[in-house]
């Protein structure tokens, strides 16, 4: 059965495994959301300066920043849920040394 939020909301909701991009101004937020909006990710702007995205998309977002020559301040440990290249393929390709 799918989990749903009941109409009787609790006192708090924890959105787990998300990442937040905090911009210094609303203008930077607009510019940044345009840059990463092109990636077609689920993103939500909260307030005047913040963007929230699922944390698993962070490598794509940082890759986009890098393409644009921007290296933002990073805080925290990234969520490494998956590896870009499949490990098994590496093993088979190097099995013979």
């Amino acid at each position: 059965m799918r989990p749903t939020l009941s109409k009787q909301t609790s006192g708090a909701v924890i959105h787990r495994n998300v990442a937040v991009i905090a911009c210094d101004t609303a203008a930077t937020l607009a510019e940044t959301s345009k840059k990463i909006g092109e990636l077609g990710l689920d993103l939500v702007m909260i307030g005047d300066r913040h963007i929230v995205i699922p944390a698993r998309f962070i490598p794509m977002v940082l890759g986009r920043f890098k393409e644009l020559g921007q290296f933002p301040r990073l805080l925290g440990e990234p969520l490494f849920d998956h590896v870009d290249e499949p490990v098994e393929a590496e093993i088979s390709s190097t099995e013979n040394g």
Partner: protein
Amino acid sequence: MSNPAEELLKIYGQASLAKIAAVHDLPGLDPFLELTDHLAAKTTRQKMVDTLPDDVRGFLGFLDEIGRRLRGERLKKRWFLHGYDGFEELVDPLLKQGIALAGNLGAREALSLETVYEQGLMQHWIQVTPGFEGLAGNPPPAREVLEKVVDPTESTLLRRVLLVELNLLSVTRFVERNAVRLNRDGSPHRTDLKAMAPLIVERPKHGDRGETIVDPLAVDGWDLITFLLSTAVALGLVERRGDLLRTANTCNDYFGKSATDRWPLLERAAEQQRTWSEIDAMGWFGAGEPPLTGQGHGGFAPDGGRAAILTGPRGSVIAALRRLNLEDWFDVEETTRTIASLEQTYLRNVLPVVPMDDKAIEGFVASVISLLLPHIGAVELGKSQSNGTPRARITEVGKAMLGIPSTAEEPSGKGAILVEPTFEITCFLDLASLQLLYDLSRFAEVIKTSERVVRYRLTGESVQWGYAKGYNADSIFKSLTRYSSQPVPPAVKFALQDWERLHRRVTVFLHGDLVAATGKADPEVVQSGVIFAVENRDHADRIDAIHTFVLGAYSEGVDRALTAFKPRVIDYNGPIVPSLVWAEADRLRAPNGATDLRILSTLQSVATYEDDDQYRLDIKKVNAVFGDDDGYASLIDFLRSSMASGFTPERELHLKKALGQPAKAKVETMEVLTLLSAEDGDRVARISDLQPFIVTRLGPSAFRVVPGTIAKMVTVLTKLGVQTAK
């Protein structure tokens, strides 16, 4: 302080005390009382020690200096490594006079001295009898055990410890930015090792390679990189997380310590590391090829590694080397034989070598001396100029590592760099300190390395990485100025400030929890509770009145802080959580803070925000997002997975009308009604209010209607938003 006689009684029992008393010409009826009287005065005890032969007194001084009990076998070995022969003839008078005792002070039962001799002294603990400490004076000076080499020695490999630490720094920096992936056997991906290799400085003093290694994983490259990764793990710089090697939270601790603290740690880590194995390394060098993947070589196994069993044997070899008092060059083969014979019993039992023989033991000892210790710069390798026999000597840094008095000092780093207007930095390693190299590794990229010089470059990317790690333009400029031999060009300062402006515009919190206060909870109370759970205020961000972001490391603390609020969790690694409710036919309510952000992201693109958390669906936006052809169908799919209040067929028909795309029906005869699409036919078939009018479903979109009720049915359909033609 208790009387020595009490200790002797406790250890040996009455029977042995009579014999000890007899040695002291105390032939009375109660040897314990007599010995108690006899040994009570310190002057008597001092006289007993003073009358001992010189060699016995020297041995007593040595035993006293050790300061704790040792088994006979190990005590004999330590005495030998101190440079002296003889053991039984020295310890025997001490035991018989009660000046030293053999046995365990903590034992529950007495064990007579006679039994100790029967079982053999080597098996028993030996220590100075309490009350006799400090009476023998200093032990004789340590003497060289091995014969001094006399002919000149040519150095063949001296790895400076700063280069070892530079390599560890480069490994840590690589892992920080690119997680090293592990194969099923725990060995690192070759592609990752190859990418790391150019950062590693490997300089055999008389190697025939150029500055860069052609195949970075040729056997010595494989050997060095595996060793560095393994040592980095042992130092707490890197750790295994799942199938990846990542930097540990303590990754910067080592580099911030002083040299006197770091060097012994490095030796300890090399000794304790569990992945690189001397035995494997000998095999790689013997074969001239790096090992095949999938055989566990250099593998970071979760429960240890191939070399986990070698930590003890390494320790015994290094301890023996430490006690041999080797001042200068020594013959590797002779030293190997000496240590192998001293540690033979232990190494034979522990080393995982087949077949196990003297040669295998000597091979391991030799590899610790000529592979492991040179890897950390503790031992310099050489060869005799007359006959080419391998030699080695403990470096000054090696002495500091092993706890031997040393003159090694780390340079201050002043004047070690030259900053050019081209943003390139030349670092002279002879003058450099680890602190300087550490700073440079944070904000500059290595472009070239050689034995004595490393070239770095400041780039927008490298400097912004530095900013991401807590540096700023001012601190980088100060650091460069402190270590530079020339004034730092103004252009560099301007660029640093420019890059900082760009960098400071955006901060990315990489992973964590967004907490939203919802319902009747006081948002301020929720936010305060969450912020209180976070030690470092930089690790949380108050986004607005109800949203607070906290880094992932504090998830458990956040859960605890919010227990009273019975929080709901939406996990963005899990399925979408339906969280929208209907407000009107084309209006949806997305509760602020309680809506799945993935749903909200789509909703914001297909609807217009009005107020009170309500969004009005806009068919133009729907078609723009989902495409003109099946915009409505895609919207229905989205809403079915997003509505917490469900999505009835009646709602679907109302929504179609509200969006200007009403369902259409046609009265074919007075008993047959058809819908223009099969999807709408399905919706009608599922509406309970229409069931009294329907006799049967004739096809996907056609219904036979109860005679005489079609007008009523059309009325109901009209209320649902269906346009019916007659």
